[in-house]
C-alpha cells in the first residue's frame, strides 16, 4: 500500500482497492486502450495495488506510438523540404522514423515548429503565404475534431498553402482487432474517457455483445481508473458483459454532436496501418473528397518511402499487450527515452517510457 498516500483522496482509493479485492475470486485480464490511463496506472502503481489475480494489459492507446513508421517517414520527407513549415505536437518530435526524427530535421535546418493547437498552424500559414504549411494530424477520436475544424477553416478562409498529413485512428476497430487475435487474453476493456467525450458510447454495445466482454468508460485520474477497474471486475465476476459509463461527469451517451457532425463532413473512414500491429480494416480517418486538396500526402506526392523498423525493438508486442515492456531484451539497455528504438519509449503515454520512468530501479535489479 506504499502508493496510496499519493492519491488525492487516499481513503477513497483504499476503499476502492478493498472493494476490488473483495469482489475478485479468480484471474482476470483487463486492457486499457488509452495512453493517459497507461501512464497513470504505472505512475501510481495502480497495477501493484490490485489483487494479484487482476492483470492490467496495456493496449495500443498512445496515438504517437501507433502512428505507422511509413507516415513518420513521410512527415520527415515533407519537413525536409525548404519551402515547408512543418507543424506538429511536441510528442512527435523524437518518434523514430527509419533513419531520423523531426528533432533531427530541425537540427539540420528544417523549419519544424511545435504548436499547441492545429489552429496555430493555420495562423502560421496565413502569416506565411509564400510557404507551404503542413500540420501532422495524428491522434484518436479525441484529437480529430480539432484537425477537422482546422481543415474546414482553411477551406472556408481560402488558405491554400495549408495542408494536413492525416494519420487518424479509431478505438472501436482496434478493440475488435485485439479480440479477433488468436492470442488474445483480454477479458474486458477500460474505454478511453475523452474519446467517448467526443464520440459518445453508441459504438460499444455492439462490441460488448459480439465478444461478450464488459467495456467500462473510464477517466484518467487515479481514482477514476480504480473506479473503472472496480466496475469491470464486478461485471466479470457476475458474468455480465455490458457497456458502463464510470466517467459520467465528462461523457454523455450521445457525445459531442457538433464535433461528430464536423468529423462526418471532413473525414471518411479508411483502412489504417497501426505501428507494431499492422493494417486494421476501417480503423482510421482520411480527408473526405470535398477536402482532399488539403491532404499533404497528395500535395507533396510523398512516394518511394522504404521503411525499416529496428530489428530488436519489440514495441509491436508491447502495443498488443503480448509482453510487458521490461520483457524486451533492449528495454533500459539499448533502448531508453534518451535513445528510443521504438515509439513506445518516446511518448510519456507509451508503455515502455512509463515503465522506464517509474519502474527503472525495480526492473534493473530484477
Amino acid at each position, binding site marked *: 500500500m506504499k502508493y496510496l498516500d499519493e492519491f488525492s483522496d487516499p481513503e477513497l482509493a483504499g476503499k476502492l482497492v478493498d472493494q476490488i479485492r473483495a469482489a475478485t475470486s479468480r484471474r482476470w485480464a483487463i486492457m486499457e486502450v488509452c495512453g493517459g490511463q497507461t501512464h497513470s496506472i504505472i505512475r501510481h502503481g495502480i497495477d501493484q495495488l490490485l489483487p494479484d489475480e487482476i492483470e492490467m494489459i496495456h493496449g495500443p492507446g498512445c496515438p504517437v506510438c501507433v502512428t505507422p513508421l511509413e507516415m513518420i517517414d513521410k512527415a520527415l520527407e515533407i519537413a525536409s523540404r525548404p519551402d515547408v513549415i512543418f507543424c506538429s505536437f511536441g510528442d512527435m518530435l523524437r518518434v523514430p522514423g527509419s533513419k531520423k526524427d523531426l528533432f533531427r530535421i530541425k537540427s539540420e535546418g528544417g523549419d519544424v515548429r511545435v504548436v499547441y493547437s492545429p489552429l496555430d498552424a493555420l495562423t502560421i500559414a496565413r502569416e506565411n503565404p509564400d510557404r507551404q504549411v503542413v500540420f501532422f494530424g495524428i491522434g484518436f477520436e479525441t484529437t480529430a*475534431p480539432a484537425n477537422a475544424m482546422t481543415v474546414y477553416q482553411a477551406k472556408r478562409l481560402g488558405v491554400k498553402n495549408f495542408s494536413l498529413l492525416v494519420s487518424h485512428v479509431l478505438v472501436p476497430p482496434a478493440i475488435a482487432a485485439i479480440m479477433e487475435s488468436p492470442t488474445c487474453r483480454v477479458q474486458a476493456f477500460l474505454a478511453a474517457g475523452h474519446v467517448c467525450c467526443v464520440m459518445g458510447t453508441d459504438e460499444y454495445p455492439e462490441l460488448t455483445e459480439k465478444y461478450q466482454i464488459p467495456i467500462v468508460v473510464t477517466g484518467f485520474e487515479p481514482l477514476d481508473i480504480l473506479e473503472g477497474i472496480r466496475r469491470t471486475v464486478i461485471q466479470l465476476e457476475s458474468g455480465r458483459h455490458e457497456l458502463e459509463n464510470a466517467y459520467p461527469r465528462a461523457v454523455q451517451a450521445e457525445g459531442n454532436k457538433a464535433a461528430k457532425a464536423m468529423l462526418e463532413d471532413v473525414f471518411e473512414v479508411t483502412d489504417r496501418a497501426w505501428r507494431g500491429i499492422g493494417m486494421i480494416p476501417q480503423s482510421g480517418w482520411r480527408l473526405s473528397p470535398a477536402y482532399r486538396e488539403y491532404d499533404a500526402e497528395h500535395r507533396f506526392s510523398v512516394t518511394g518511402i522504404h521503411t525499416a523498423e529496428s530489428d530488436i525493438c519489440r514495441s509491436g508486442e508491447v502495443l498488443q499487450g503480448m509482453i510487458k515492456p521490461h520483457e524486451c531484451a533492449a528495454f533500459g539497455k539499448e533502448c531508453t527515452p534518451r535513445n528510443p528504438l521504438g515509439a513506445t519509449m518516446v511518448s510519456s503515454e507509451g508503455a515502455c517510457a512509463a515503465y522506464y520512468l517509474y519502474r527503472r530501479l525495480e526492473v534493473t535489479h530484477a
Partner: protein
Amino acid sequence: MCLAVPGRILSLSDRDGTLMSLVDFGGIQKDVCLQYIPDAAIGEYVVVHVGFAIQRLDEESAIRTLAEFEHLGVLNEEFGDGFEIAAKQAGVPVPGSTATTEVKS
C-alpha cells in the same frame, strides 16, 4: 497529448467567424476554440484538448482535476515548450532558436 485539461472561460471573441475564448488553466491562459461547445458562457468550465473545448465540466470536478494535474506536473508537459521538453529527454541542446515554438495569436 491524450490529455484534456479543464479550464475556466475568461472571455469570448469572434475571430474570422470562429467562436474563440480565453481559457484559464490554473494560471496558464490559452486561446481555445469554442465551436464545439457554442453555448458555453464566461465563468463556465470546459474540458480542453489541443486548443478545443470538447465538453463541459462542473466547477468542483474541474478544480479537483486541475489541482491533481498540477500536483503531477502534467500541466508543464501539456503547455510547456515542446522543443525544450524533447531536448531535455534527448539530453541535447534545443536546435536553433526557440523563438518559433510559440504562436501568439
